[in-house]
């Protein structure tokens, strides 16, 4: 058994030498997560904006449901997606189980409510401020939606970053639907879990360091965006 110091040095060595396995895993993680965040934004931004900007029956209920879905347990989502995609499930014939697509689907289900709920909040707050001006001008529903989304753009960037943070660190759902297959569906979090249990700490720690750095970058991004927003009087 190596000393902790030795493990950390070996882990950093893996990162600095650009270890092929490590890079493959990091790239797949980013591909899956960025795809899921993109899909979540495509669905969640208009959905959240519509619930925040339009008045229609059932709007309050949808807002509550979106907020509740933010706390979906990942393993339950993983299980549900597994059942849908398994050979016996309704989408079995698509043969998506244990592919990156399955992981993207699971993460999208986890992140979309986050994007939608936070978008709804941001848009609703802004709409409260703008609504009389909009009513005075006679702004129609579609333009109202696009104008609010555009004016909330800086806040929504932090929403997307929050979604990214949640997805990239998620392990339960992608483990179930991806299966952690070497060279196919092995991402950072699932590899850390597996390699740690096998006692192969170098790779686990190296990936942990990469994950931490990503979290730092995301947080720095959020803070930078806030700074820009304050300077441009966007708050």
């Amino acid at each position, binding site marked *: 058994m190596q000393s902790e110091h030795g493990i950390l040095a070996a882990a950093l060595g893996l990162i600095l030498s650009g270890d092929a396995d490590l890079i493959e895993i990091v790239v797949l993680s980013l591909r899956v997560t960025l795809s899921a965040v993109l899909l979540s934004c495509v669905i969640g931004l208009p959905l959240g904006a519509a619930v925040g900007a339009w008045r229609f029956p059932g709007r309050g209920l949808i807002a509550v449901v979106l907020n509740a879905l933010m706390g979906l347990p990942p393993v339950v989502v993983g299980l549900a997606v597994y059942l849908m995609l398994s050979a016996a499930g309704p989408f079995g014939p698509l043969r998506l189980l244990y592919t990156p697509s399955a992981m993207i689907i699971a993460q999208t289900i986890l992140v979309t409510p986050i994007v939608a709920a936070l978008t709804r909040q941001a848009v609703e707050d802004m709409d409260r401020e703008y609504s009389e001006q909009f009513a005075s001008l006679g702004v129609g529903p579609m333009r109202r939606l696009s104008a609010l989304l555009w004016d909330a753009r800086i806040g929504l960037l932090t929403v997307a970053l929050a979604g990214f943070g949640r997805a990239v660190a998620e392990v339960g759902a992608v483990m179930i639907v991806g299966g952690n297959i070497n060279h196919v569906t092995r991402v950072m979090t699932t590899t850390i879990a597996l390699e740690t249990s096998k006692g192969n700490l170098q790779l686990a720690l190296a990936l942990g360091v990469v994950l931490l750095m990503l979290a730092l970058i995301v947080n720095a991004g959020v803070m930078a965006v806030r700074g820009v927003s304050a300077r*441009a009087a966007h708050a």
Partner: protein
Amino acid sequence: MRDMPTELSPVPWAHTPAAAPVLETRGLGFVAGGRSLIRGIDLGIRPGRRTVIMGANGAGKSLLLRLMHGLIRPTKGEVLWRGAPLDRTARDAQAMVFQRPVMLRRSVRANLRFALSVRGFAGAERAEREMQALEQARLQDLAHRPARVLSGGEQQRLALARALATAPEILFLDEPTASLDPASTKAVEDLVARAHASGVTVVMVTHDLGQARRLADDVIFLHEGTIAEAGPASVLLTAPRSGPARAWIDGRLYLDDRKS
């Protein structure tokens, strides 16, 4: 208010008593939270005139403006635009500047562009109107600044220019100079005067007696949700007949018998 006395006006089509009001309210009432905030208001705004609405805090001035502009629905009575209920046509013919200007999180110019787009202006004409509005409000140098970093006075000028850029027939102003210094106040009053000279009907709320004297053709004095007195500025601002208006003009505090 149908019998509002008329006087000679600089606007040619408004000087005959026959000039039909462009906007009328009939038996207007608004109840909220169990309180009757606007009660039985009948008034007519005549085209090309500047009507100033005065009254104490909470008298219902802003509510009346919102009702006339169709931002809130009356619980009683109706608002008529050219004899018909408020609709899309009325919306496009009206503009309002709020007491606290609402600026989009965009540049000064993009704020103008947004309002113009909503009102159906596009292409070269829209660009032309943007430039005109910037020039009128003397905001050319600030065209690309985020609108929300402008000072209060600059924002108020932008709000007014934005409202006027859409070529409204009637302009509602809710205390447009309430928190402005004398120079900014003058700039806003000049813009209003220019709009009026080009034929825009102006309805303005103000607490400033001097401003009312400078700008008003007609005055409506509100007291606790009803019209205490209405008439030409020359009469109402010099020899008011109603208790509340007289106390206001004299600079006294008017305390209602029922309350004191």
